[in-house]
């Protein structure tokens, strides 16, 4: 009994103390995509606390293999009663949070601190900022992003005497190169190395081709399905043909793409910047990137990208302090240490032009032509990944039919039309 009284006394003293001395705690949730990334975050928070003595950060690293998995775990946490002030989230998740009225617009804060933030917005490609804007209101300061490029194994190209692809290569060039890269070394009728590996993925596999074809899976405001567009069907037919007609790609599930690529079993694959960490850890250098191939000479390039940022929750009791943290995470000296370095999420591209094109930061790591990353969003029109509010369901539907099409179990046409039906009823339902 005595003990609990003392405990109560200590606790109330602590509460009174923290109020009296004005210490507020900001709860921040972020995606810990790899355990080694934690060190960089910790240092960043220490730096913030040193500059802002009145603010403590209660940081919650949430592990997960993908953005989706991360969001799942955060959801379970929220359901368990956790009330964070700020969260690192990708645009796909932001639409969901927005629909639930869980995050607040930052316009007033940005307007007030205009002078301070001018340098940041000048350093960020407009497309990245616009992707955080819904109905004219901006809900996050962009933090990092990714686009889709073609990675190729330079050693395999050199061995076969194939010239490296150029910026304006077309789908025809792509197929021709893939054919040359597909080699049956032991003449057993089965290729021992393939030209290209198709990821049965949404952002990372099918949408870049659909964008290249000059269309999208949904209409402009993401309220209607466009999966029955003959051009979408054409794209899926093309992907199916790469496996079964041209025979330049293995059926999906062939094996771990990065490893097969490093082993010279796959000549090209599609990704953003995220393979870098695997390649660096393995000491693999025989790779480079090129822009996504154009569909044909007449279809202009449209860059696909996905971006993430830090959002401020409506339920936050300390919006001012949280806003300070959000601003801090957007600062150049902070991002230079945290975004895209080996110590921290090297899987993403920094949103700041000055960092993403820096020889010092990006040039130290593969690929050699890293400038393609930022050029793709500034030299060409760019659109964020089409992610309606119920993105996880949309993705599940699409990938179900993509996997069936790529397994040659259903025609491209039938798959797209069925996906269209399911999209339509999903979007109508909500």
């Amino acid at each position, binding site marked *: 009994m005595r003990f609990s009284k003392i405990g109560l006394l200590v606790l109330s003293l602590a509460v009174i103390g923290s109020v009296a001395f004005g210490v507020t705690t900001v709860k921040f949730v972020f995606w810990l995509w790899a355990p080694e990334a934690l060190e960089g975050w910790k240092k960043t928070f220490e730096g913030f606390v040193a500059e802002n003595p009145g603010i403590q950060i209660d940081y919650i690293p949430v592990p997960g293999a993908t953005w989706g998995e991360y969001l799942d775990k955060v*959801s379970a946490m*929220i359901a368990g009663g956790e009330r964070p002030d700020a969260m690192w989230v990708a645009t796909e998740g932001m639409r969901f949070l927005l629909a639930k009225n869980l995050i607040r617009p930052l316009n007033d804060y940005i307007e007030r601190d205009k002078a301070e933030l001018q340098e940041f917005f000048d350093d960020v490609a407009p497309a990245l900022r616009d992707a955080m804007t819904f109905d004219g209101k901006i809900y996050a300061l962009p933090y990092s992003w990714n686009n889709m490029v073609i990675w190729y194994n330079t050693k395999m190209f050199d061995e076969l005497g194939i010239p490296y692809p150029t910026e304006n290569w077309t789908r025809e060039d792509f197929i021709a190169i893939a054919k040359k890269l597909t080699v049956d070394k032991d003449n057993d009728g089965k290729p021992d190395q393939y030209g290209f590996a198709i990821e049965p993925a949404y952002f990372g596999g099918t949408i870049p081709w659909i964008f290249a074809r000059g269309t999208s899976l949904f209409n402009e405001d993401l309220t209607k399905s466009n999966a029955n567009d003959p051009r979408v069907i054409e794209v899926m037919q093309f992907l199916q043909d790469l496996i079964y007609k041209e025979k330049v790609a*293995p059926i999906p*599930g062939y094996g771990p793409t990065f490893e097969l690529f490093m082993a010279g079993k796959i000549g090209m694959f599609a990704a953003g910047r995220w393979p870098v960490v695997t390649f660096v850890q393995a000491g693999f250098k025989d790779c480079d990137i090129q822009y996504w191939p154009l569909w044909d000479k007449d279809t202009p390039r449209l860059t696909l990208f996905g971006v993430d940022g830090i959002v401020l929750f409506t339920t936050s009791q300390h919006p001012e302090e949280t806003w300070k943290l959000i601003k801090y995470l957007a600062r150049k000296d902070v991002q230079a240490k945290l975004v895209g370095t080996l110590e921290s999420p090297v899987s993403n591209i920094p949103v700041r032009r000055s960092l993403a094109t820096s020889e010092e930061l990006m040039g130290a790591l593969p690929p050699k032509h890293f400038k393609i990353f930022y050029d793709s969003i500034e030299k060409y029109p760019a659109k964020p990944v089409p992610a309606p509010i119920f993105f996880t369901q949309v993705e599940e539907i699409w990938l179900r039919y993509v*996997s*069936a099409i*790529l*397994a040659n*179990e259903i025609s491209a046409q039938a798959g797209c039309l069925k996906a269209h039906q399911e999209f339509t009823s999903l979007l109508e339902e909500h």
Partner: protein
Amino acid sequence: MTLKQKENIIGYSFVLPTLVGFFCFSLGPMLSVIVLSFFSWDLWTLPRFVGFNNYKALLHDVHFLNTFKNTLIFVGGVVTLEIIVGLFIAVLIEQKRYRFLKSGFRTVYFFPYVISSVAIALVWHFLLNPDLGVINYYLGKIGIPRINWLFSSHWARVSVIVVEVWKNIGFYVVVFLAGLQNIPKQLYEAAEVDGANRRQQFFHITLPLLSPTFFFLSVIGFINAFQIFDTPFVLTRGGPGGATRTIAVYIYETGFRFFRMGYAATLACILFACIALLTLVQFIVSRKWVFYR
């Protein structure tokens, strides 16, 4: 306090830890699932009462029908194979001439049962890889063309059943062995004296006397097979085209990926009702065929 009261208190305190666990982690969540099935809840905002809407939505849900069909295919395949193969292996091990190897065999067959099912599914994922997997390599050696184990809807289902059976077979073997050992040897001796051959002995002594074992294993088998989750989730991710998506996988996705907790709870209630009903039917029918000595 009388002795009886004292004994009662001691008795209850022995079962208390289990009881607390049962109420907190089994009965409590089960009841809350039933309540939740009448709500719409996305985890992020407060639950909203929707009456029977979730149950009505079930009627138009094509996925539900598909996953239910897949689950029934797995239940049929897995339970049948587990019982037949389990019995076959148990009878082989029980042969007189292999007696000295019995404990060794028992351990070997039981081993997969204690390994993490995710690890099992991951290893089989490598073995079954159509191009780089060991299984297709050896099948190729004996002239069987490449089988697309994981990425054709037909073979993916077969793969899930095979892995599921491989994983659980040890349990069935051990229970069958126990059942076989319980059969009195005098019965076989008497049958031999009467001139019954091995086949007749098997069908007229072994099988009838194993009927309680069959009953136990089929009840357990059905309950487990209806809840198959880890194997398809890791091995095939429910694909291709949803061919190996079971109800349990669908419940997980609905709840934790689509954030439709209420609807997921409804699906869970339906699954519970199916299993309960089937088990009840099994108990009723068992009176006709299960023979207790």
